[in-house]
């Protein structure tokens, strides 16, 4: 496993402060953060390009903090793939083995195996500049994994691809990681990548890790307004919270919410659009939060539908196409919405 303890990095004006992370064996770990959050610098420090000011990096129990990059057994793949333009695809892939002075027959054996597993055998004699983005990515991965690294660092590996390719290659990345059984540390600014690929997610902002957990935890219960906004959490409202009979009573203007966990005072609450029920009639359920509203907009997004409901507050609710038809909902329909007190998350 990869353990990062209290890492501090100063680079010009840029600072990473007290970074602590643990990536488990065979885990696909995503670091999510906006541009300028320090994601690349963190990766490059793990790779050994920069020396941290404080803290330590342990790779399977081995302290590599001051070990030069060439001895770390860490592979890196960048957004623009960084294939050496003066070498062919084959020469790119065998670069590391040549440096380590492998014999020619060993190099050829390894190349054959890696190229077959990534389906790039037919590209070996090409000039990297003539490859498509997806092909370049695979060559770049091949060049890294042929060295048999303990961990693969991916710096926005899907960032420069067009959206359909991005989705296919994202799945491919996960497949490769599962097959090789290695740790992957993938930095990204895309919420979608994090939720579809990550076993675990850390949110990095302003040089600090502000939340770590599995994706449903982090995106369902963001611990700060920054994360809520960044990951596009919907239904965020500002209000006042008071503890009464073991429940938090939250008033947002005229509306009242009940929540199970949280704190008192001026707070923000959020409710995931998937956790809200919609009905044509008043709902009598165990849900502690019930509102009446009017549908102001309906928009399809893939197999689901977003309903914009005005209850005095603007709610976004996600339902399936089938539910939309069954309930016969249209813009202007009067509906009732409900959700449990446990669905109300306080920031």
């Amino acid at each position, binding site marked *: 496993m990869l353990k990062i303890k209290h890492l501090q990095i100063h680079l010009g004006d840029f600072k990473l402060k007290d970074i602590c992370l643990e990536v488990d064996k065979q885990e696909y770990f995503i670091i999510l953060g906006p541009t300028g959050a320090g994601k690349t610098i963190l990766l490059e420090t793990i*790779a050994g*390009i920069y020396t941290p000011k404080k803290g330590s990096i342990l790779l399977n129990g081995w302290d590599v903090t001051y070990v030069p990059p060439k001895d770390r057994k860490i592979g890196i793949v960048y957004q623009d793939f*960084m294939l050496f*333009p003066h070498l062919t695809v084959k020469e790119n892939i065998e670069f590391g083995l040549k*440096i*380590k002075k492998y014999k020619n027959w060993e190099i050829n054996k390894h190349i054959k195996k890696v190229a077959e597993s990534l389906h790039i055998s037919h590209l070996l004699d090409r000039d990297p500049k003539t490859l498509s983005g997806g092909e370049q990515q695979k060559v770049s991965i091949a060049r*890294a994994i042929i060295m048999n690294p303990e961990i693969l660092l991916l710096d926005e590996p899907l960032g420069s691809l067009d959206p359909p390719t991005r989705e296919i290659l994202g799945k491919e990345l996960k497949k490769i990681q599962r097959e090789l059984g290695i740790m992957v540390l993938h930095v990204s600014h895309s919420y979608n990548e994090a939720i579809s690929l990550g076993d675990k997610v850390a949110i990095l902002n302003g040089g600090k890790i502000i939340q770590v957990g599995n994706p449903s935890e982090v995106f369902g219960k963001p611990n700060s307004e920054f994360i809520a906004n960044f990951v596009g959490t919907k239904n965020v409202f500002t209000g006042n919270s008071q503890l009464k009979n073991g429940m938090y009573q939250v008033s947002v203007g005229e509306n009242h919410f009940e929540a199970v966990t949280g704190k008192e005072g001026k707070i923000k609450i959020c409710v995931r659009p998937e956790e809200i029920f919609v009905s044509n009639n008043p709902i009598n359920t165990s849900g502690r939060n019930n509102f009446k509203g009017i549908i102001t907009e309906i928009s399809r997004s893939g197999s689901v539908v977003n309903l914009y409901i005005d209850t005095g507050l603007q709610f976004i609710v996600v339902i399936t196409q089938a539910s939309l038809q069954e309930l016969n909902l249209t813009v202007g329909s009067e509906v009732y919405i409900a959700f449990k007190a446990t669905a109300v998350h306080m920031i």
Partner: protein
Amino acid sequence: MTIKIEPNLDYNSKTLIQKIKRIKFNYLLLLFVVLTIIFILSTVGCIFAHLDLGALKESVRNREVLFAITLSIWTSTLSTFFCLMLAIPVAYSLVRVRFKGKTLVNTIVDLPMSLPPLVAGLGLLLLFGTTKFGDFLSFLGLEFVFSIWGIILAQFFVNLPLSIRILRATFMGIDPRYEHVAKTLGCSDLSSFLKVTIPMSGQGILASISLTWSRAIGEFGATLMLAGAIRLETETLPISIYLNMACGEIELAIAAAIILILISFISLYICERFTKFPNVY
């Protein structure tokens, strides 16, 4: 009706006038280009006009001109080699190493380029001719003042900033992440530089060599101050022109000039043809 049509007509005629104006402006610009070309060609052409092929053939066989050609070629080749050897590490560290006062260092490195070569030569003469440092070097057998080594040193000093500038631009154009990848693949700092950065800089290095070399072969002012104008001793092609003009041997001077023109033309052509850096300096 007329009111409605008029603006339309007006608009059309306006664009037509604009088109003509635009074309006229381009012609005007081209006129400047033509004037510049005429000026350059007539200057160079005048030298060729004084050329008598028979005299040129004879001059090339002349011991003095032959000496100047040989001396110029090997001194400029050596000084270019030394420039490159120093410019590569300096340019690379100016691009990759973080340190305070980089702007000042860059300015100092560029300084010899904007100094008049005569001033540079004077400085070199004082440094190597009047100080303990110079005495120590000549004690070791390295005599720079009024010697062939002085020619090489003068060319080296004057051209070093040019080499550094071209290579600095070259290294700046290479993403450091290529080196980062190489390091994770088993390269040390030095081997990532030698296996990745240098091969990727091929064009810049070629540009640097051809421009430095062609300027070294034409270097006059600093050479005159440091190495002197000694016939058949420190007589490079430009010095030869100067000496022969001074004593009225105009045919020999023209022969040397024509050889210089051909050399600069060929090396500039190589630079324009094979590299992407024709206009770095």
